[in-house]
Structures are given as C-alpha cells and as structure tokens.
C-alpha cells in the first residue's frame, strides 16, 4: 500500500469511529432520558391531547365517548352557574391570599434576620406549621375557628368581641382559608431568610453612609436585591393557587356538617354557598363525582389557558421589578 493510500483510509476510519462514538453517545443519552421520555408521553403529552379531544365529547366512563362538538363549551360559558363563581374564587385566592402569604413570609424573614438570640427556636416555630400535613392542618383550623365552641371565638368572647362565623360564613370562609395558608408559609420564609442574609453587607454600609434609615434601607437595598426570590415565591404561590384543592375540599366537607344518612356523601363542596368552590374543586366535582368527564376536560382546557396566561403575565411584568445581580441568567 502506498503511503498516500494509507493516509486516505485513516480519515475514513476516524470518521467511522467518530460516528460509532456518536451513536454510542446517543444511546447513552437515550438510556438516561428514557424515564422522562416515557413519562412525558404517557403522563403529559398524551393526556394533554386526550383532554382536548374529550372536551368535545360526552364521556362518563360507562359508555364510549360521544361527540358533542362545542356543547360542553356552550354549557360552560352559557348555562353553568357554578363555573364563574369557581373562577372568581380561584382568582380571589391568587389576588389576595398569595400576596399576603408572600408578605408574611418576607416580614417574618426580615424580623428573623435582625434577631440576635434564639433564632434557631424562632425558625423552628415558624417552620413547623408548614410541615403539618394539609388535611391535618385544615381539620385543626376548622376546629379552632368553630363559631360556637372553637377556642378562637371563645377567647374573643372573653374579650367582649363576638367572633365571626369563620368557615360557616360565605364572607369569612375564604379569609379563614387564607389564615390557614399564612400559617403554613414556613417554606417560603426559610427561602427568604436565606436570601436576606445573603444580601452583601457593603450595600447596607454604603446606604447607611448615605444617611438611609431602617425603612429606606429595606426599600432600596434589601427588596431590590432579593427581588428574584420574591418573584420566585410569587410564581410558586400562583401555581399553587391555581391548583388549590385539598384545604378547600376538607374544610367544606367538615364545616358543612356531618354526612346525612340517606345520601352518605351529600355534596358539601363549596360550603357555604359556593364560597369555597374553587376551580379545581369544581373540576373534581364534575369529573369525579358526577363523572361528566367530557365537561371536566373542557374545564381542564380553560385551566390550561388561564395558567399559561397568568404565569406569562407575571413573568413579563417582573422585568420591571426584578433586578438580577451579576450574570448567571
């Protein structure tokens, strides 16, 4: 073999070796990603498409789906009297409970960051309620806020105030749920605490030199610096608000009173007067109590659209408030 010919074969060998390596690499990636690929298709991609399809059908799992075209959507936007209260309730929660949660978490974190003694104890006290399983915490609060025999109204009574009806009143039921949500801000609080502690000292020092008092320092140093974390907390809060189910379900069922004998699971969802009927709760009722699965799928499509819209809005508006330190994004 001439030297030139030998030279000519070597690049081919190398490229074949390279493509073999490339295939092996693809195999490895495929192997590592396989759980996600299967999971995504089966539990995300397929259901999304199927949900869309089912939303145009009437389906109760007892017989095959029946095509009904836009009927479900017509019912949703026209005749169903529970959908719009449900939407309003969920939006109420996102507009009021979520910001309050963030505020409280932030406030407690800031207070904690300035504490000198017993920080560990305080931190535990504030974090513990977040650990309580949601069902347990809800039951606890329904009992605590029982208008007749609960400790809160008893103590208020001793102070001469007649306590409200809390979970039994349409005006107070959502605020009661908000109180429950605020009780559980431990997780967010810890995140804020870490972020506040991480604010570089020199920023405070230069602010102090400029004559800034405590509140100014808060407004112009702390908050802007931790604004990415605040955004994160708000986004997480909104996402959770869009899924809010457990506490509303448990509170309505328990506060609504015991089951009646002849209709064991008498429907108390939304008690009282649809005030705790959040969108996921209504979806559950339509889909898994009435088994109106076609209609529930239509509701799911609306939820999808709203989730996208809300998250998109928040992230876009965040540019105005959020300052990112350094590169890294």
């Amino acid at each position, binding site marked *: 073999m001439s030297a030139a010919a030998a030279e000519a074969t070597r690049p081919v060998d190398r490229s074949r070796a390279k493509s073999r390596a490339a295939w092996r690499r693809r195999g490895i990636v495929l192997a590592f990603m396989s759980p996600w690929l299967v999971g995504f298709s089966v539990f995300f991609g397929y259901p999304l498409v199927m949900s869309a399809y089912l939303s145009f059908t009437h389906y109760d799992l007892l017989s095959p789906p029946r095509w009904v075209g836009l009927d479900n959507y017509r019912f949703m936007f026209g005749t169903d009297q529970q959908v719009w209260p449900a939407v309003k309730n969920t939006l109420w929660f996102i507009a009021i409970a979520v910001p309050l949660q963030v505020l409280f978490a932030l406030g407690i974190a800031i207070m904690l960051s300035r504490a000198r003694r017993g920080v560990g104890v305080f931190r535990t006290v504030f974090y513990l309620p977040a650990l309580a399983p949601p069902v347990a915490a809800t039951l606890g609060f329904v009992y605590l806020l029982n208008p007749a025999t609960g400790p809160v109204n008893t103590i208020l009574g001793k102070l001469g105030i007649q306590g409200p009806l809390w979970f039994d009143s349409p005006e107070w039921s959502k605020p009661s749920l908000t109180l429950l949500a605020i009780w559980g801000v431990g997780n967010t609080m810890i995140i804020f605490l870490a972020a506040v502690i991480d604010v570089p000292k020199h920023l405070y020092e230069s602010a102090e030199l400029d004559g800034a008092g405590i509140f100014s320092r808060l407004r112009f140093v702390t908050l802007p610096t931790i604004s990415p974390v605040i955004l994160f907390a708000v986004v997480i809060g909104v996402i959770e608000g869009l899924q809010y189910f457990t506490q509303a379900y448990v509170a309505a069922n328990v506060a609504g009173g015991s089951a009646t004998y002849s209709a064991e699971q008498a429907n108390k969802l939304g008690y009282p007067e649809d005030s705790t009927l959040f969108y996921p709760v209504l979806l559950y009722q339509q889909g*898994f109590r009435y088994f*109106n699965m076609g209609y529930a799928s239509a509701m799911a499509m609306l939820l999808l659209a709203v989730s996208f819209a809300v998250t998109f809005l928040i992230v876009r508006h965040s540019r105005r408030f959020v300052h990112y330190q350094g590169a890294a994004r």
Partner: protein
Amino acid sequence: MRRVLLAFGVLLMLTVTGCGGSSKSASSTSSSTTKVQPANITIWTPFVDPELITFKKVVKDFETKNPGIHVKVIGGTNDDKIVAAIRGGNAPDVAQSFTSDNTGVFCPSGAWIDLGSYMQKDGVKDSIFPAAPRDYSKFEGKRCALPMLADAYGLYYNKTLLAKAGYKSPPKTISELTAMAKRLTQRDSSGKLKVVGFNPFPSWYENVPAHFGPSWGANWVDGGGNSNLNTPAWADQLRWQKSLIDWYGYDNLVRFNAGAGDEFSASNAFETGKVAMHMDGEWRVAFLKREHPELKYGTAPFPVADDKADLYGAGYTTGSIIGIPKTSKHKDQAWLLVKYLGTNPTALAELSNGIQNVPTTSASLKSPVLKPLPGFQTFLDVFGNKNTTTTPITRIGAANQETFQSFIAKYLSGSKKDLEGGLKNTDEQIDAMEKQAEAGQAP
C-alpha cells in the same frame, strides 16, 4: 398408551369443568330456584356497625339456604365509591345504594344490569312492591334494581319539652308547628339559642327540600319530565322556611348548629334534648333506643301546609336499592342474593327489625316476624299512605337536588332575594344538566 392418554384427557376435562368457581357460568342456569355453580361473591353496603351486624346475619341466612355461595360483605361504602368502582372495573357482584337517586345513572348506561330476564325466569313480579319503591327502582321502564328497605320521614317530638310548655299533642299544620316552635325555644342570658323548638336551617341533619316538599304537595317535575320547581307550592314552602329562620336569626342558627353534635352520634341535638321537634327518618327510633332510652319522645306524620290539610298523614319516602354491576363475573349467584334480600319476606322483616327501616314488599309489611318498636308504626303508616311521594329519578342522579339545595341555601341566607326568579333559574340549570347528560345520543 393411547388408553392412558384418553383417561388422562377425560380426567383433565372433568377437573376443568368441575371447578366452575371463577369460570363464566353466565348461561348455565336453567329455571327458578336454580342450581348455580358455587362461587364467592362480594356485596357492598353502606351500612356500618351496628346495623352492619344485622345485615351480615341476614346474609348468613342466605348462605345457609344456598350452600356453595360464599358472600363477602363490605360495609361503609357509598354511592360515589360504587359509581367509581364500576367505572374502574373493580365493582362488587352486588351493590347496595342508600338512595334511589342514582337509579337513573345506573340503568340507562347498563352499569347495573337489567334484571328483567332474571325476574321473569324466577317469577318475581313488579307488583309485590308498593307504588313508591316500585317507581324509584326503575328508570324509563327498565328495572335494574330491586328496592330493599325504605325510609319514611315524619316528625319526632320531645314529649317532656312539649308538656312543659303545655302541649299535649304534636302539631298537625305548619302554622301550629311554627307557633309551637317559637314557644318551645329557649335562649340563654346572652341571647344564644339553648333549646330550639324546630330548627329550619337548610341542609342541617335531614332538612332537605325533598323531605319538606310533600307537606306542601310540591312536585319536582311537570308532566313532560321537565324540572318544575317554580311553583306556588315550593314558593310557599321556602317563604315559610325563611320567615322562621329570620325569626331565629340566621347567624344564631349557624352558631347553634356548629355546637350541635353530629347527626349520627349520641350527641345528636334531638336525642340530647336541644331540639324539641325534628324532621327525621324512621331509623331514629333504633338510634334512640340504643343511645338515649331515657328520652320521652313521640312520632307523628309531619305537619302539612294549612291549605293542604287533606295531605296530613303522607310524607316522603325513598330507600335503598340493590343491583348487580355489569362487571360482575357471577351474575347468577348475585341474582340469588339480590332476590333474597329484596323479596324474601322473612329476610326483609329481620332487616327491618334490626335496623328499623321499612320493609319494601307488601308481603313483608304483613310478615309475622316484623316487630316494630314503639314509634315506628307512624312511619309504616306514612309509607303506606297513598299521598306519600318520592323524588323522580333523573339521568343526573342527585345533581338536581344538589342544585336546588344550593339555591335554597343562598335564598334562605338572604344572598339571593328573588325567589321566583331563582326557582326559574334552577329549573333551567337542571334542565340544561339533563340535556347535557343525554347529549350526543342517537334519538
């Protein structure tokens, strides 16, 4: 060699056909009290202890009469679970539902099988059931359930509290009820309700529109099957309820209810003397005997509207139904159990004695085994009264009642003020829901 093989083959065939336990023996039955293959079947029932004990005993009697069939009883279920199980494919062989509301859901879809052919084979006729149970276990002519024990509703009153206020007999009309309720109510020094004469609060214990309707002669549907709640009868009923609630004070009642015990606990408000007069079902006599035998109480038909005095003695009835989910693999054996529990007069009488529910065949109502407790006779009479009604069976199960209750809660609390408008609205909602349930079906 061949002979050995043949013998082996025959032996194999014999063993295979012999173990008919889980095989599809669907078409193997021949005639009435049929000889079916032995099998293990399950039955789901909403009963819990202590009623469950009686139920299990009656089921045991069935097992003795039908050797080879073993029945596993699972208590504490409810309609939601049954419905979910049928859809999930894990349903039992026999299911019992506490309400007839879902007949319209189970029947048309075939979730519970049509019992017509079984009944014909075994000579079970529709006419053995009194009118109301016969109707609430059928839908559009198809019978996919048998009634099993019914509930009848009436008035319970605390004789001691009534006597203290100078009353010797229970009220017969609504205005008597209202007057007595106001006299019997006691408040403590701070104005909080201590004893309530009659608690009109919606959806509290048994205060649902279905139970009150019959006293005003109110119906749920018109002749065409459309929802017809916008009628003077319902309007009168709700106006009465609202006026009584306003007299008590809505918030006061909420507080009272929050402090009252659970309906099925020993702290039940009527059983503990916190409520003087009470709308309840016939089972309460059993509970009272068990939990508060010291309470001196009486039972009577529920008072009727002043202008409907001829309806007195009637009331509301509904009841349990039993049927066979379509996923059952032992339908023949299941039918035997259903037939026993639904039509055998002794079985029904025993169940009635133990649970104090109303037996649902004309034969069992006359059974010598039947031993009603004092106070129970009222309900037997209500059940037999020709004006007693039940709620119509719809395709949407109990959704019509729940929609109505939702509006009533808002009207009675003052959130919604337009009564007739709200009733009309509710009618439209219910009709729309029914239409949706039928949507897409070939006419």
